[in-house]
């Protein structure tokens, strides 16, 4: 036996050696790439504030942009009139780097490979701080006065909130604002509402009774559809107490005096979960609320299979669904209602959604950018009225010509006559709005809307101005509370996150209301065991700092 082994081993061994000698040549290239980012850092010296402003159109400028989202993709730059106009007139081209559905891994590959793109468009979280601490980001402070749009429109407070611990600004906000915004709320199917006798829905009981009515009359309709990731459950949380925004749930922490405390023990949260559990047990809520995909939600809304719909962005599918339903039947469609709450809560203290002055997300410029100033200049152009008009309504001369004193474009006839093409363009442009300026666009949109004949006014703008913007909660002080992922608090936060997600499922499917409380008690105990208290302490500290920055 032994003898045979020796011989049969010989050949593979020879082959391995042969293979090794072949590979030795490329061995050098295979060394870990982790050292390269440092090299890169030293290549690009700290940006100096030269006096001359960057001039667009002189030379071509190509900017690589990586969207740090699983879903990120974008239409080709230059494939529509607006970006084509920018490409032709300013010689700027944005080249996308795609995440391939796995943003986390992609970013890490980019870091490890030392090939960071010029701009990363990402969530405002611990990740930004991780990049900054490792010296991969370019601060904007030297450019702020030279290119004034951001400073003017975002305001000093917002910029201060965005500043990193070293006091410098590394993040270019998107959809920042000084005015309330946001689309959290409830929307009802018009036809069913009318057929059910238009009952008033002002309290939680009214809401519950309405769902019962729907279920009795339309067995195939989903009485309450909470949207993607069951965001509508978070909306409902706002109905149990005054000034009780869903922010608490997304923070997994509830403010109590000057401390943030456990979500699982919050009486309001517990009550809301019991209520949701009751809806589920009685078949009043979508059964696949926690697992459905965005497409499935969309399909239900578009086909009028939901009686009440709610999410963090109700108007998104609301306007699409309304358009789809009215096309089939002019009497069908959706409308929004003023948010309801437990009896006794004042109407103006119900906050089914939240907003913050920092907006949605940010763009950061990396040290790999050859000319960070040019990149900043372009972002500043995009966020200013001049650039943003192009990226919102298309280039001048297409659907608008000239602007009024407030910078609102004057519409051309084409805007109305070529509605389909115009809408296609505007839908496409949403993908390029990385430096959205809510403070400019919202008033402009409203004013724009008034230039339209009433039947042409958009569904979205109507309900935003009538309801959602009036009911959203300003949650700016609760921004940036998360610890970085690698820290001890960050590791604990992740463990709590898993516990929260599991407990939410368990609470929804629990057999009785008492079981809901048991699930939440257990979740708190489990979370406590993995360090929930240290996470809460960290968040409290950051929250108090934020309040100070905001002068509260």
């Amino acid at each position: 036996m032994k003898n045979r082994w020796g011989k049969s081993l010989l050949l593979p061994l020879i082959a391995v050696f042969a293979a090794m000698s072949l590979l030795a040549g490329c061995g050098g290239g295979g060394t870990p790439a982790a050292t390269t980012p440092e090299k890169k850092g030293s290549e690009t010296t700290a940006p100096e504030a030269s006096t001359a402003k960057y001039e667009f159109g002189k030379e071509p400028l190509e900017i690589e942009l990586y969207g740090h989202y699983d879903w990120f993709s974008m239409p080709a730059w230059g494939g529509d009139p607006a970006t084509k106009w920018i490409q032709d007139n300013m010689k700027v081209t944005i080249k996308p780097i795609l995440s391939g559905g796995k943003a986390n891994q992609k970013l890490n590959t980019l870091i490890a490979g030392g090939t960071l793109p010029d701009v990363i468009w990402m969530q405002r979280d611990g990740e930004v701080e991780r990049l900054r601490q490792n010296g991969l980001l370019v601060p904007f402070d030297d450019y702020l006065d030279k290119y004034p749009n951001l400073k003017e429109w975002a305001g000093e407070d917002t910029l201060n909130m965005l500043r990193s611990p070293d006091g410098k600004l590394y993040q270019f906000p998107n959809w920042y604002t000084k005015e309330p915004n946001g689309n959290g709320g409830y929307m009802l199917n018009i036809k069913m509402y009318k057929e059910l006798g238009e009952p008033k829905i002002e309290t939680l009981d009214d809401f519950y009774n309405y769902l019962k009515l729907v279920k009795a009359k339309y067995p195939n309709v989903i009485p309450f559809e909470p949207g993607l990731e069951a965001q509508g459950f978070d909306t409902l949380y706002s109905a149990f107490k005054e000034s009780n925004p869903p922010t608490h749930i997304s923070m997994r922490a509830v403010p109590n005096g000057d401390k943030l405390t456990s979500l699982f023990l919050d009486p309001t949260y517990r009550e809301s979960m019991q209520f949701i559990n009751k809806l589920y047990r009685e078949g009043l809520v979508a059964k696949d609320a926690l697992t459905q995909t965005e497409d499935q939600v969309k399909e239900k809304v578009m086909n009028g299979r939901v009686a009440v719909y709610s999410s963090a962005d109700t108007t998104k599918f609301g306007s699409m669904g309304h358009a789809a339903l009215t096309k089939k039947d002019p009497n069908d469609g959706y409308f929004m209602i003023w948010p309801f709450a437990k009896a006794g809560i004042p109407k103006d203290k119900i906050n089914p959604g939240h907003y913050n002055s920092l907006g949605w997300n940010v763009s950061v410029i990396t040290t790999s950018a050859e000319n960070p100033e040019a990149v900043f200049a372009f972002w500043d152009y995009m966020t200013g009225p001049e650039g943003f008009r192009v990226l919102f309504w298309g280039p001048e001369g297409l659907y608008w010509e000239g602007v009024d004193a407030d910078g609102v474009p004057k519409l051309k006839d084409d805007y109305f006559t070529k509605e389909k093409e115009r809408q296609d363009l505007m839908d496409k442009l949403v993908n390029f709005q990385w430096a959205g300026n809510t403070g400019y666009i919202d008033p402009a949109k409203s004013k724009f809307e008034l230039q339209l004949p009433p039947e042409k006014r958009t569904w979205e703008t109507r309900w935003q101005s009538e309801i959602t913007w009036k009911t959203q909660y300003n949650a700016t002080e609760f921004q940036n509370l998360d610890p970085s992922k690698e820290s001890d608090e960050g590791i604990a936060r992740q463990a709590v996150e898993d516990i929260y997600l599991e407990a939410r499922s368990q609470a929804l499917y629990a057999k009785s209301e008492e079981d809901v409380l048991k699930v939440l008690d257990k979740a708190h105990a489990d979370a406590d065991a993995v360090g929930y208290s240290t996470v809460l302490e960290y968040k409290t500290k950051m929250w108090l700092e934020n309040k100070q920055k905001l002068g509260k």
Partner: protein
Amino acid sequence: MSPTDLSTSKGSAPDPGLQIKASKQSGWQRFIKQIDIQLMVLPALCFVFVFSYIPMYGVLTAFQDYSLFKGFFASDWVGFKHFAAFFKSPDFERVLRNTLVISFLKLLISFPAPILLALMLNEVGNKYFKSLVQTLSYLPHFLSWVIVSGFVISMLSVDNGSINIILEKLNLIEEPLNFLSMPEYFWSILITTNVWKEIGFASIVYLAAIAGIDPHLYEAAAMDGASRFKQIFLITLPCIMPVVIIFMILAIGNIMNAGFEDILLLSKDKIVWSVSDVIDTYVLRVGIENHRYSYAAAVGLFKSVVSIILLTLANAIARRSGNSLW
């Protein structure tokens, strides 16, 4: 490793004449003589070397606080810190239990299923029917898990899922069931899907082994009056036993790999984590997605060490029957 290699090398003794001839030649001469065949092996060897051996130094990061920014050489060494963290973590027990249970179920059900299919196919007389069944049953193997899980999710969906519709029409249930959100059904769904996807492909090996059995044995048995059933148990099964045992050893070595894509894709609702979270999904979620590379490496290394121990044990037991891997 092809199935025929296995069955012939283990099943029949090498020709003594060949062996004498071979030992007269030096290894190098034999290598040159077979150069065309050796060259064909080369890409596979390179592949294994580049993708399995070179990255192996990476397991050392399990003993570091690896930072993506500092790189391998500049990261701090921390000994067994990450192992201790994993063993102390409240998830440890659950993850290990799920891994073992799911693996064991796969061993118990998914492992014998293709043998059974092969035995059944072997008894089918109609050649065309046999190859039709074979083709249809091995096709799912070539579908990726993303697609298969898509089928499963839509079939089991609570909103217009076909299974729920059938059950409702048959009056077996009153309201559609949310199958993928019910922890008690998760293992059955997972194993069933696995069997469906892999049964045909896995049975090819056994069919090949069965084809290699000397037909004289059957003729002799038939003469002695053995029924079809007896022939299966007394001839077919014992003859393919060496192959079965080899695959059994490999399967036991794989027991810490409960599966990954299938579990990840079917456990969309977090409520099933209590039964679905296995070592690999845990490594992905807690380790890699949160940049805890060292922790992920430590958990992965723990898994590999246990796998090697199990493999060695299984092999030692199999050696007693004379069918061991080494």
